[in-house]
């Protein structure tokens, strides 16, 4: 989305969210972005248009302290991927959803995956499939005959595409199965659903994911993107050694890395945001993952964008705080003008406020606090309520 597409009302809502929490809502992330354009262009061109379009996959890690812009970057990637026809799921690795629980992750993916189908934003696998079906899903015939890791799940996908009414008992059962709920054979038989069996469990969760990705490819989606946002030191062991849960999580991350490298997860992009210290911990305690992600930690070498592990500062062209501030001010003044207010004198006020915030946050992530401070000034100017 660009500044020309967004309404003044949406701008105010986004600015308010930024003033409160330092980040815009998902819908308008790119309007407020500063400095990520070049990296996003690289990501789209090289990773999405070449690597994934050619059948490849990749797993990436972005490292940064609190407030450095990790969630913001994930939202930008999500926005781009949706525009390109990907199915996307962004997961906040909160205490309610742990990475070590692969079945829970799969269920979350099935229910919360998003895609834009002919411009219509959709959420959940069932809704995506029924919409594809209504639009005459190309590839349905090919899907029916292609062998898949989980044939029962594939059959459910195929039958969901055929559903014209999503409110019938049959549709409800298919939805339940597709979303990872346990559905008995008796119920399926009663609803005349055949060939659908083996509901999601711990053992077949990976087969579910593989079948999902391959099926969506056949049905015309460009690829699949998993975005994992770590906000709470989920992977940081307390008191030395990681516990079993953390080791299981690291093991699953290794699975994902291997899945992307070996092609068992085709046309897939997996992105993790991590806090500083994670890689060092993995190198010591879980070498299977640590070695796969090993990189030279040399202050004189800047990471190429092709490296799987990058610091947040390496993907933003406005690496210096002062440059970031300058570009942010320029962006926000344009936004204020878009809302019909004058930006006269605003740049100076923002510069003063921004410099103060950067100094206060020296040595740590400053961006969230900075965006809060600048957004307040922008809203007050728009509303004519400056203090």
């Amino acid at each position, binding site marked *: 989305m660009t500044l020309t597409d967004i309404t003044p009302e949406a701008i105010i809502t986004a600015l308010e969210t930024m003033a409160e929490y330092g980040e815009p809502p998902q819908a308008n992330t790119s309007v407020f972005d500063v400095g990520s354009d070049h990296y996003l262009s690289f990501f789209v061109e090289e990773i999405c248009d070449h690597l994934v379009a050619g059948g490849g996959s990749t797993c990436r890690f972005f490292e940064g302290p609190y407030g450095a812009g990790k969630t913001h970057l994930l939202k930008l990637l999500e926005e781009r991927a949706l525009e390109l026809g990907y199915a996307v799921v962004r997961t906040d690795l909160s205490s309610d959803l742990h990475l070590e629980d692969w079945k829970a992750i799969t269920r979350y993916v099935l229910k919360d995956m998003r895609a834009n189908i002919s411009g219509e934003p959709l959420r959940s696998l069932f809704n995506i499939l029924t919409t594809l079906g209504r639009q005459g899903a190309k590839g349905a015939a090919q899907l029916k005959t292609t062998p898949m890791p989980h044939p029962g799940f594939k059959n459910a996908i195929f039958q969901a595409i055929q559903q014209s009414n999503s409110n019938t008992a049959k549709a*409800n059962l298919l939805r339940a199965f597709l979303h990872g709920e*346990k559905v008995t054979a008796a119920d399926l038989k009663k609803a005349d659903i055949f060939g659908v069996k083996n509901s999601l469990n711990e053992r077949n969760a990976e087969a579910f994911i593989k079948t999902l990705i391959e099926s969506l490819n056949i049905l015309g989606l460009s690829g699949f993107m998993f975005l994992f946002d770590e906000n709470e030191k989920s992977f940081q062991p307390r008191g030395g050694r990681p516990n079993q849960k953390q080791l299981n999580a690291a093991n699953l991350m290794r699975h994902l890395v291997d899945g992307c490298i070996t092609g068992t997860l085709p046309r897939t992009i997996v992105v993790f945001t991590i806090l500083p210290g994670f890689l060092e911990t993995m190198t010591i305690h879980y070498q299977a993952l640590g070695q796969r992600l090993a990189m030279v930690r040399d202050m004189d070498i800047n990471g190429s964008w092709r490296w799987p592990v990058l610091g947040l500062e390496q993907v933003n062209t406005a690496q210096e705080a002062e440059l970031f501030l300058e570009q942010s001010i320029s962006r926000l003044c344009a936004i204020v003008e878009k809302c019909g207010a004058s930006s006269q004198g605003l740049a100076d006020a923002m510069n003063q406020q921004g410099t103060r915030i950067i100094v206060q946050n020296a040595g740590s992530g400053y961006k969230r606090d900075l965006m809060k401070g600048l957004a307040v000034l922008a809203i007050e100017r728009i509303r004519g309520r400056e203090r």
Partner: protein
Amino acid sequence: MIIDYIGILETMATNGVAPAAGCSLFGVGYEKVFERLNKVYLQDRIATRGGSAEKFVVGPFGSGKTHFLRQLMEIAATQKFATSEVSLDKDLDYSNRLSVYKEIVRNLRMPDSSGRGMREILAACAKNVQGMLPDPDAAEAAFQGWLEGITDHDFKQDKFARVAQKAVRYYDQQDQDGFQTACQWLEGAFDNKEIASRLGEQPVKGDELKLFASQAMFSMFQFIRYAGFKGTVVCFDEADIGFQQTSKDKIQKILALLRADIGVINDLTGGAVFFVYALTDEVVHSMMQYMALKQRIDSPPGEGFMDGNDYAALISLSASTDREAELRKIGHRLADLLYDYARIQLAVDKSQAINKIDQIAADIIEEDISSSSRREMTKRTSTLLLNLLNRGSLEAAATVSPFEEDEV
């Protein structure tokens, strides 16, 4: 009505606590704060644009946090918001989302309704939609269209939407059994196999329950908005008790949930919910040790809510510069209401009562009760006024010596 007023005075005289109703009558000192919250959040962000928000009201014990929350809910209720007050005491585990969901539902009041809970919510939603058009036939058609459209609307949790749809249908068809079953599920019996089976749904498995409850909670707020109400205000009181768990792991869990909620609220479409927590400074201090949360809710120095920044997450109630003036104002307000409201001739002139009240304020400042001075002022003034009402005297009963006797 005068009896209610006296009941309120008695409550405040005994405990110095905010009454369950009527806080708007007595609220003093935060008029501008409520004006800002009403304008920026209740009217603009939530009612007009369907957005959601979260605030933390911070102050020591006795600084008026409960009163503040209740006054905010009263303001919201008069503007057709649903409200729910949840006490995060030691019996409610905030880290257990299902328990929190059940408690929010149990305490939820719809506008113009005296009842609480899921049955009231659903009935109010149905009636609100049915009452939108004056022509009965058009209203019925609109209602059926609204009902049909529930499952097409983007709720956070599809299953919640389907069951809510069934529940409203049962209500409309006066199917008591069906309505009862659906309400039980919506009240939180998500994992009950029998109830799920009767509704044609799969029970939610144990490991999914917490996440499901969280999603159901936000879906409920979306549903209330979808039914045409302005939004919902949920106030969490005594969060200092609820958050100060003995286990470090549990505290971490709670802080993580607070952080995660911010993300959900940011991206929630049509949720129209306002979460307000009452916290002590100690709890806020703990929150600020948790970087992921601190980054989101902290404000730069000079940019706090009381400095004029409407968007600052923390609202500090201990920022008053002239405490004695504030205490006098509280006392005067109570006196105004008694003298203006009471339809009986009071034995003492108002100016005398005011003088006594001013003395009370000065005494409290001198005693340096500090953090609970508002509570103490409320208590002593309420006692004074009750004495006046009941005994016709500004003096307390205990000042009359039991040994004074007329000489025979």
